[in-house]
């Protein structure tokens, strides 16, 4: 089957029910997307499919054929994604960093859909888990991007 990932078309040989995450990491070597819980609970494996955030560990690969997939490796090709990464660096959000690629993808999806999210909307969308507890820094960075967009 053919997959569109980061503006590139890949020929993939996988069973229909293979989780997208295994294809991305093991078959294509795009290891920026992380395996966390495998149960759609933590969000470490978040990627964008047609601009919406999905958890790659519970996404059967057959379901994303013909759709546009974006992983952390290409998030800066997106204008909003680029600003999110800059804000992440500015606020030094990452501590151990394992969950952060998923956090960046979730924040990018939120800000593309809702450029000026309220606190409640941020809390509702940023449900990825972070064992270092970087939640306050994440909130600050998301607010920063939203404010910058307002000024731009």
């Amino acid at each position: 089957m053919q997959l569109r990932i980061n503006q590139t078309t890949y020929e993939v040989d996988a069973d229909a029910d293979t989780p997208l995450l295994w294809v991305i990491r093991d078959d294509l070597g795009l290891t920026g997307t992380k395996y966390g819980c495998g149960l759609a609970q933590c969000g470490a494996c978040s990627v964008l499919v047609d601009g919406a955030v999905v958890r790659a560990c519970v996404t059967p690969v057959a379901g994303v054929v013909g759709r546009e997939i974006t992983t952390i490796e290409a998030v800066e090709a997106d204008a909003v994604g680029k600003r999110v990464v800059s804000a992440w660096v500015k606020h030094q959000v990452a501590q151990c960093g394992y969950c952060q690629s998923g956090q960046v993808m979730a924040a990018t999806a939120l800000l593309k859909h809702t450029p000026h999210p309220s606190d409640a909307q941020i809390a509702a969308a940023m449900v990825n888990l972070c064992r270092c507890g970087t939640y306050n820094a994440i909130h600050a960075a998301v607010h920063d991007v939203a404010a910058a967009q307002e000024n731009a």
Partner: protein
Amino acid sequence: MTKSRLATTLGCFALLCLVIAAVLAWYVTRTPASPFAAQASAAPPDPALVQRGEYVARLGDCVACHSLPEAAPFTGGLKMATPLGAIYATNITADRATGIGAYSLADFDRAVRHGVTPDGRRLYPAMPYPSYAKLSDDDIRALYAFFMHGVSPAAQANKPSEIPWPLNLRWPIALWNGLFTDPAPYPAKPDQDAQWNRGAYIVQGPGHCGSCHTPRGLAFNEKGLSEASKTYLAGGLLDGWYAPSLRNDPNTGLGRWNEADIVSFLKHGRNRHAVVYGSMTEAFNNSTQFMSDEDLGAIAHYLKSLPGDPSRDGPAWQYQASELSAASSAPGAHTYVSRCATCHGLDGRGQAEWMPPLAGATSALAREDASAINITLNGSQRIVAAGVPDAYRMPAFREQLSDREIAEVLSFVRSTWGNHGGAVEAKAVGKLREHTGPASSNPIILQMR
């Protein structure tokens, strides 16, 4: 004069009581007839018969209760809670001291089809002999050959039941049997074709589908043992799960499934409507996936012949689109979006046949909310199809969501996309939380040899 008449009356009454007691004593201890009674045990049977017996054991899912994952096959030990106290499945290997090695074919027949041991003791109907009564003589013979020659004898003493005296007296079960069971093997219906009859035989007999899917009466009796009853396979509540209707009910049953859907569900554990979960996981992992395509087709054919009941099932479900986003404010909607939608979809339609839709799901349409609550609290067991554990399974949310949050998200699911199962109360969640535990994340496959 009056005195002597009184004495006569009393005497007659006493005699009558004695006669009744004698008849009763005979009735409750008698050995049921077996067509194999006069047959002596033969030499080791044809290997083909043993193999046939193994298949019958698959149809009957004997292993589900008579084996534990860590123990030798068929040595029993599974604890079963009953309202009266716990009982334990027994060792049915051919070990002579602790198993059934000393059973003749007739003894075996009486135990399997009539629930009576060689010493005249009645089995508890946790052993589904009300269904197994319908097994054919040929299948009983094959099953016996398998347990005597296909399964390794293993010494493992049976655990005594924990039902206290006088509730542990077994003889009243004979009366229960007289009222609620039919000892005759399955009678083929001449007005139906061979496929239908084969399906009816498996469903009613070895498959004992009714044990879970038929509602039970006050005496814990199944309210029907064949399609002659309108409540046969109409859905039942058992062990914290609602086993849905297997009749043509569009909401709580198989009304929207075609025969191929049913075959796929029983063979692969999934189809476009649903994925196996709850108690059905054991039936799938150990039994239905091993059935032949012909038998699965026959089961589907038979089940699709059972009419639904609109007065019980209500108006047929139809999909209604619903706008959902992370900002949805309805109680439960936010939990759904953040916890459930990644798999089950913002539109409630799931993902192909891998993650089941909740829109139109039986658990979201049935009045009984036990399955919806149970699967949310405890998650699903691993489905192992053709030796491969499933890639996706429902996680347990008991540690993450409170009773109220689960009640809210389920009330939301059961009232969105056209679902009309109705609200779930936090109290009901709390009650099931106490009586259940999380599903194991390890694949559990019981070996038969």
